[in-house]
């Protein structure tokens, strides 16, 4: 089980879906949800500067974050290259654009989960692969 998860998504309803799905699938004990990439970047900057208390083990980022200064890929790039890395991080989005997936991979994303009505099977598959992401041995994977 993942100790702590963070979801950054601008859609409130998806926060509830994700929380319930994670709980039912025993994916994580604790889940923090945020709506903007700015807030997430500020938190990661603080963890980078002042200590890692409360820092999540795994981060799911939506690709398009309405109301934020930058998108999910840029946030992943910031977390990986500016704020010290050390988290399993990837995209969770309804988009399935290979071009965007390639950009996410370059930014340091380890996975790409496609949102749909049936998110549970993809999260279950992700749960099985998680140890590989943590040890950085799994290649970038798209969960369709």
């Amino acid at each position, binding site marked *: 089980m993942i100790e702590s998860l963070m979801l950054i998504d601008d859609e409130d*309803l*998806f926060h509830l*879906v994700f929380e*319930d799905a994670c709980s039912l699938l*025993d994916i*994580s*004990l604790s889940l923090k949800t945020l709506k903007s990439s700015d807030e997430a970047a500020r938190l990661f900057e603080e963890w980078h500067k002042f200590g890692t208390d409360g820092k999540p083990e795994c981060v799911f980022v939506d690709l398009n974050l309405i109301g934020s200064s930058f998108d999910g890929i840029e946030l992943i790039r910031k977390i990986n290259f500016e704020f010290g890395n050390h988290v399993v991080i990837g995209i969770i989005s309804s988009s399935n654009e290979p071009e965007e997936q390639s950009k996410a991979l370059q930014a340091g994303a380890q996975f790409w989960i496609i949102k749909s*009505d049936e998110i549970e099977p993809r999260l279950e598959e992700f749960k099985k692969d998680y140890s590989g992401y943590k040890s950085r041995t799994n290649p970038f994977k798209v969960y369709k």
Partner: protein
Amino acid sequence: MKLCKDTKKDLIRIFETKGIGLEGNILKIIDTTEDPNFHNYIESCKNKDNENRKKRLEITKQIQAKNKELETINEEKEVIMEQLKESLSEVEKAKEIAINDLDVLQKKKQTELIGSIVKIALGVIISVGIVTTFMYVISLIINKDTQMIGSTWANTLGILLTNAFSIIGTIMGVKYSSNNNKE
């Protein structure tokens, strides 16, 4: 996480009497290995929590689907409104062009009519002039009384001379106006 015996008893009692149990991820970290009763209590709470979450998940997904449907309908509505606005604008432009064309056509017809009237009037005056002159000349040749025809001829010639410049001016004006319309 380990709980003391009294707390466990209280939790079980509240669950049995009021149906209120623990919820959420706290259930996953409570140690139940030493107490079978408390283990059953935690399992019941977990089952209840899972059922509630399943229901909530189902409802949330339905709301999400409806929201998406509404978004799609709104987008379609906006596209239709945009198309309607464009159509309305095109119709207004076409109306303006038609009104302009009609105006030009009316002016052209009016100009043509004026031209025709002037030509006919000129034709009549000239014809009258020619006929009167012819009659006057014939009267002079055959030595008939020329008093009547002489004054008629003089009057006709006077009218022709008086109005000649005005008629020519009108014709020139009509021609100038026609040329402008063609341009």
